[in-house]
């Protein structure tokens, strides 16, 4: 039998104004298990806490009920008080007689009656409370960042600067991500490479950062503080530590017709290649799909010209297993495929391009050396039409496109338009838009400059059709403000394609048991208050994998994610929430129902030997809850058909005792 103390708070007149606190204390004195029941002006004050402290000591209390304000307010306070008096903090229950009683009822009699019932329910619950101790697990003081774009690089740098080792896993042969492909960045128009490449080098040279480029995460096991990750280092057929990145092999390779993905296949590269001049690590990679030596065994030119003897045609994929305490997803985004949008003639004309392709065309290191030339005939375009929201903000019922706003297109289109007019003032630039959204620092000023200073024609309305005619592109569009149809003879059409999460995000989320929204963006633990954490403990989100973002936002989110990781890695041991699920192994029938509903993957099945009657033993498959992973939602407790699964602190018996007390 518990020895329970009941403490009723006046909260000045907040409670005492509508609830007869003396009557409540008196009525609760005779509830089962109660040995002392008293009231006081302010329980949360030092004097009130001292009173509880004394009462616990004097009466050898095993549990207390505080009838006061919401547990969201002072549960932690009273738990500390209980702990200081030698009582387990989880033997404290709060009856919320302020927010849910005195403040919502006006009548003293009604308020008092309800307060007594709420007190009774809390007493009934605490009678069944058991002391709980949060479990402790050690933390592997090392972080994994998945994705080596600006988000991943920034997160890794910030974590590494705090003194923790970080690995960056990048599927491409180089880090840098999408930002490395950009020409200039809005709203300041500084060149992307000039601000990104120093960061790439810094990451490569940082003593705490290891870059695993051309690698993929294959499997993730474990939980917060203790992840075990399998990483596949793909064979690049070049010894990374020996290659000097001189680039001689990439000039001599006879296989010249390989579409260059870095330039979005607008030009060709060799079968052995370095993606771009500032690549990190600056190491050549052989593309096994095109290398004649790897395919037929006849060639070997690169090996012959390599003075460092770095070429190794026998290299194999390598699987490594590493341990981490925290994982950051920074998988980024891609423009969506333009295939379903054939009204814009993307597949019919080379002169209909996406904005990212335009970015490469404008880039000094791009296929045209920074000259704006039409991909079809290499001529300078005189009329350019930009189409906004291609695939963004589509109706939920449309068969194609995304419902959300891709957020960055308005600004980069303004940038493209401005840069074009700046470099080629003889060019007519039209931008067709639904809305122009510029809610960032200096964003609207930037857009207005494009219109006012650079004379870009902004037209509200959508393009209906683009049809190639000769070497021209006939653009049919509507001008909604002038209420008329427009026919423009364009030389180049640029589509602001919507962005979507990288394809690798979905399988990664499955491995991490992290949740995603319907668009495959990672979901954050709380949209406002925990925006860089995944609901799965130990998993953090950085950059566009969480939602469309521009560079400044990505960098700030990357830093925020790093701060959260550092906070986690700085701990030697993790204290969990003790209100977790637990299964009664004797009742468990091994059906896996709980495992299937657990949003965290906290439940695993083990086969255990049980002693049975008559000195026999039996092997049975039973559920086991990993207390470090369980968040205590209780979904499994309801799914369990045999009643083996229960939630500590919110046990079925406790909740039913509350139900009984309320219905009495």
């Amino acid at each position, binding site marked *: 039998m518990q020895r329970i103390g009941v403490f009723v708070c006046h909260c000045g007149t907040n409670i005492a104004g509508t609830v007869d606190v003396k009557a409540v204390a008196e009525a609760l004195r005779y509830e089962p298990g109660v040995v002392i029941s008293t009231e006081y002006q302010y329980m949360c004050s030092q004097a009130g806490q001292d009173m509880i402290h004394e009462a616990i000591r004097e009466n050898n209390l095993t549990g207390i009920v505080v009838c006061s304000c919401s547990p969201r307010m002072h549960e932690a306070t009273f738990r500390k008080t209980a702990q200081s008096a030698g009582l387990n903090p989880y033997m404290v229950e709060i009856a919320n007689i*302020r927010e849910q009683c005195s403040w919502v009822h006006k009548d003293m009699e009604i308020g008092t009656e*309800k307060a007594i*019932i709420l007190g009774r329910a809390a007493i009934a619950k605490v009678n069944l409370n058991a002391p709980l101790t949060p479990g402790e697990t050690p933390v592997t003081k090392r972080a994994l960042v998945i994705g080596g774009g600006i988000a991943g690089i920034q997160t890794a740098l910030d974590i590494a600067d705090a003194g923790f080792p970080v690995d960056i896993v990048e599927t491409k042969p180089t880090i840098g991500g999408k930002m490395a492909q950009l020409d200039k960045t809005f709203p300041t128009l500084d060149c992307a490479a000039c601000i990104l490449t120093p960061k790439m080098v810094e990451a490569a040279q940082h003593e705490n950062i290891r870059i695993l480029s051309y690698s993929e995460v294959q499997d993730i096991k474990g939980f917060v503080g203790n992840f075990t990750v399998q990483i596949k280092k793909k064979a690049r057929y070049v010894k990374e530590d020996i290659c000097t990145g001189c680039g001689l092999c990439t000039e001599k390779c006879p296989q010249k017709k390989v579409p260059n993905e870095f330039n979005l296949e607008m030009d060709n590269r060799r079968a052995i290649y370095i993606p771009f001049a500032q690549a990190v690590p600056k190491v050549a990679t052989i593309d096994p799909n095109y290398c004649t030596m790897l395919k037929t065994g006849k060639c070997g030119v690169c090996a012959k010209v390599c003075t460092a003897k770095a070429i190794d045609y026998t290299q194999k994929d390598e699987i490594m297993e590493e341990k981490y305490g925290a994982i950051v997803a920074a998988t980024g985004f891609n423009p969506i495929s333009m295939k379903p949008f054939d009204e814009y003639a993307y597949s019919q004309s080379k002169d209909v391009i996406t904005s990212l392709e335009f970015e490469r065309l404008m880039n000094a290191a791009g296929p045209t050396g920074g000259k704006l030339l039409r991909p079809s005939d290499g001529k300078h375009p005189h009329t350019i039409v930009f189409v906004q929201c291609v695939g963004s903000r589509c109706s939920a019922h449309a068969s194609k496109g995304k419902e959300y706003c891709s957020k960055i297109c308005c600004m980069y289109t303004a940038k493209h338009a401005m840069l074009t007019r700046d470099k080629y003032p003889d060019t007519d630039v039209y931008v067709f838009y639904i809305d122009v959204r510029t809610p960032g620092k200096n964003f609207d000023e930037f857009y207005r400059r494009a219109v006012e200073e650079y004379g870009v024609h902004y037209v509200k309305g959508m393009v209906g059709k683009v049809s190639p005619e000769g070497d021209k592109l006939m653009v049919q569009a509507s001008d909604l403000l002038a209420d008329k149809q427009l026919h423009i003879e364009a030389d180049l059409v640029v589509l602001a394609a919507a962005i979507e999460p990288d394809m690798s995000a979905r399988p990664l989320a499955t491995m991490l048991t992290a949740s995603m929204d319907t668009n495959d963006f990672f979901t954050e633990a709380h949209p406002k208050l925990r925006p860089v954490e995944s609901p799965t403990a130990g998993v953090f989100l950085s950059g566009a994998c969480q939602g469309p973002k521009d560079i400044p936002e990505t960098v700030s989110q990357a830093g925020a994610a790093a701060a959260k990781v550092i906070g986690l890695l700085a701990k030697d041991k993790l204290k969990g929430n003790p209100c977790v699920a637990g299964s009664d192994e004797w009742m468990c029938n091994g059906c896996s129902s709980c495992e299937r509903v657990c949003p965290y993957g906290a439940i695993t099945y083990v086969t255990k030997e049980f002693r049975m009657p008559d000195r026999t033993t039996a092997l049975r498959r039973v559920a086991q809850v990993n207390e470090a992973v369980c968040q205590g939602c209780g*979904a499994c407790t309801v799914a369990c058909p045999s009643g083996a699964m229960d939630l500590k602190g919110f046990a079925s018996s406790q*909740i039913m005792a509350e139900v009984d007390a*309320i219905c009495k």
Partner: protein
Amino acid sequence: MQMTEFKPKIVAFCCNWCSYAGADLAGNNRLNYPAEVKIIRVPCSCRVNPMFILRAFQRGADGVILCGCHPGDCHYTSGNYYTRRRMALLFSMLNFLGIEKERTRVEWVSAAEGAKFAATMNDFVAQITALGENKRLEDLRCKK
């Protein structure tokens, strides 16, 4: 002699993260709702076993309402989806058990919706009061 006014007994299960906070907000804003509503805090609406609801009816509750985070906002990401399915199933069986379906309800109340919480409770209590006492499932052995 006039009958005493019927005061229904109503159990409200509220998830810790949204609806319980919503109820607190209703209190902070001093939004009145009937005292017949007694709240039980659960970590997530998906912690509520349909058994708890039947138990409440058995013990003499006249109405049971279950409040959770809005779909998509669950603190545990998917708990309220489980709730929605489980309760759809339970509610579809209630008539068969002899309980009016209207005695139960699932509502999504966020931590910011104090006003919605109070309005929901006012509405629910009015609905239950109109239905009258729950006699069908009440276990007479539990009557004091």
